């Protein structure tokens, strides 16, 4: 059930995306769709092009050809900084937090595109800036609270356990009020209890906030427990696409994972 004031979950359509770095083909035309409200797992061996695909959706990489659209909005026609406004939020494989800043400041970073006070309004201390600041602080505290991080808001982001930092990054992504949330290996480096906890959190958030999730993950336990749908990449190509149980037994997937292609 989507919360009031929150946009509905989005549909991501990826069509035939191709990306090369010099002579290396990173993405070789995968196409798939993430349906509204579903958790779609993007899996595959290392170097399969999963993060490259995330970067294409985020606008950090420009694919050579193909289409990426969220609810009909062509993401490839946007600048990287406009993608957030189109409803995409993401986390990073190696954490994209700002270590010297407090947890609250990090999370508030996610409010950027929802606020308008620029250099003039901020530099002169106009009421607009104070109003927005108060509103977003309140919202950030709410998000932190819902993730059980409220007591850490003034702690610097450095020096916290990895599991906590991953949740801080998640909180920041939630501040963007995304219609599509992209998580890049959220379970990486977590101990088994934390993985279960995280799976629980993501599931809960999805029902609470109502967004679609695209998830890169190697931890098969987590993938199987929360994904409604799996897309498998290998060497930049899609080799399987379907419900988790089906994909798990797909011979092409088994081969890719067991090293038949090495």
């Amino acid at each position: 059930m989507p919360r009031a004031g929150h946009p509905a979950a989005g549909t991501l359509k990826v069509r035939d995306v191709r990306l090369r770095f010099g002579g290396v083909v990173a993405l070789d035309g995968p196409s798939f769709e993430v349906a509204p409200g579903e958790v779609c797992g993007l899996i595959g061996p290392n170097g399969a092009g999963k993060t490259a695909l995330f970067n294409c959706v985020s606008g950090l990489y420009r694919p050579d050809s193909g289409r990426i659209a969220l609810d009909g909005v062509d993401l490839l026609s946007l600048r990287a900084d406009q993608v957030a406004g189109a409803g995409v939020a993401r986390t990073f494989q190696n954490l994209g937090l700002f270590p010297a800043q407090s947890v609250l400041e990090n999370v508030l970073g996610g409010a950027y595109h929802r606020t308008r006070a620029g250099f003039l309004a901020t530099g002169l201390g106009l009421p607009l800036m104070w109003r927005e600041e108060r509103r977003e602080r309140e919202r950030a505290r709410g998000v932190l609270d819902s993730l059980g991080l409220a007591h850490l808001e003034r702690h610097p982001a450095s020096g916290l356990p990895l599991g906590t930092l991953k949740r801080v990054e998640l909180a920041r992504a939630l501040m963007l009020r995304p219609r599509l949330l992209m998580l890049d290996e959220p379970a990486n480096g977590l101990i088994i209890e934390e993985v279960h906890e995280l799976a629980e959190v993501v599931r809960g958030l999805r029902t609470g906030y109502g967004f679609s999730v695209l998830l890169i993950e190697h931890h098969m336990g987590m993938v199987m427990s929360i994904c409604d749908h799996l897309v498998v990449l290998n060497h930049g190509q899609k080799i399987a696409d379907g419900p988790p149980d089906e994909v798990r037994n797909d011979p092409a997937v088994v081969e890719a994972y067991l090293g038949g292609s090495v």
Partner: protein
Amino acid sequence: MTVLLQQILDGLTAGVLYAAIALSLVLVYRTSKLVNFAQGELATFGAFLTWQFHDWGLPLSVALPASVAVSFVAGALMERTLIRPLLESSNHLGLFIVCLGVLVTLLQVEAWIWGYQVKEMPNVAEGPPIALGPTMISRQNVVIIAACVLIAVALWFLFQRTRFGLAMRAASDNTPSANLLGLPVTATLTFSWGIAAVIGTLMASLVAPNQFLQPGMLLPVLLYSVAAATLGGLDSPVGAIVGGLVVGVVENLAGTYVPGIGQDFKQAVAFAIIMIVLLARPQGLFGSRTVVRV
């Protein structure tokens, strides 16, 4: 016509110096990925050493090698003590600040020890200028050009024909895999800083008779050399030489023939070259394009 030819020749002679300092900038950039703004001042310091050794009564043929040897050690030491730790923590802002700090420190140490009185540096080659067709070139300038050619050939040999050069090239391309191949990467870093300092001292000592030896002698040259290295491509030794000569000629011709520029304002030409190259072709004429990955 004669004036034009003379201007071009003068430009080339000046360009040789820019090329030499640009070469040392490139050497350092290839291995350490930074522009050592202190390079020119290190060279000036070396020239002061040559002067000092000579002033103590040593003949130039002893004084020059002695100061060159000291510079090698100084350059290598700078890399080992100041640069390496920051490079390892990839603190780029820190590296930039430290290079500037070294520049200022050297400048002030020179001023402290030797003062701002211009020092008389003897020429290596005395005698009347040589006529080249309708143009004239001083014997000292012939020596300077010869020295630069020698440096270029020696570097080419070092890079292309020795195992050390292989390690150096490997270090500039990809440090981790070079380490895996068992090439002495860390040694080459230190070595290239030493060589860069040697080039600087040699050239600065040779141009000192023409350039007024005083603290900050090569600060204007630093600007032209940075322009030269940028134009040629920061990681290309060939580019540094071509860039240096081009900048020397362009600067000289612009100063003489373009109205409104004049001799004082020639520096703006270097600035314009830097700006235009960085915007239009950041990798320079001969440099390699770096792929930025997120």
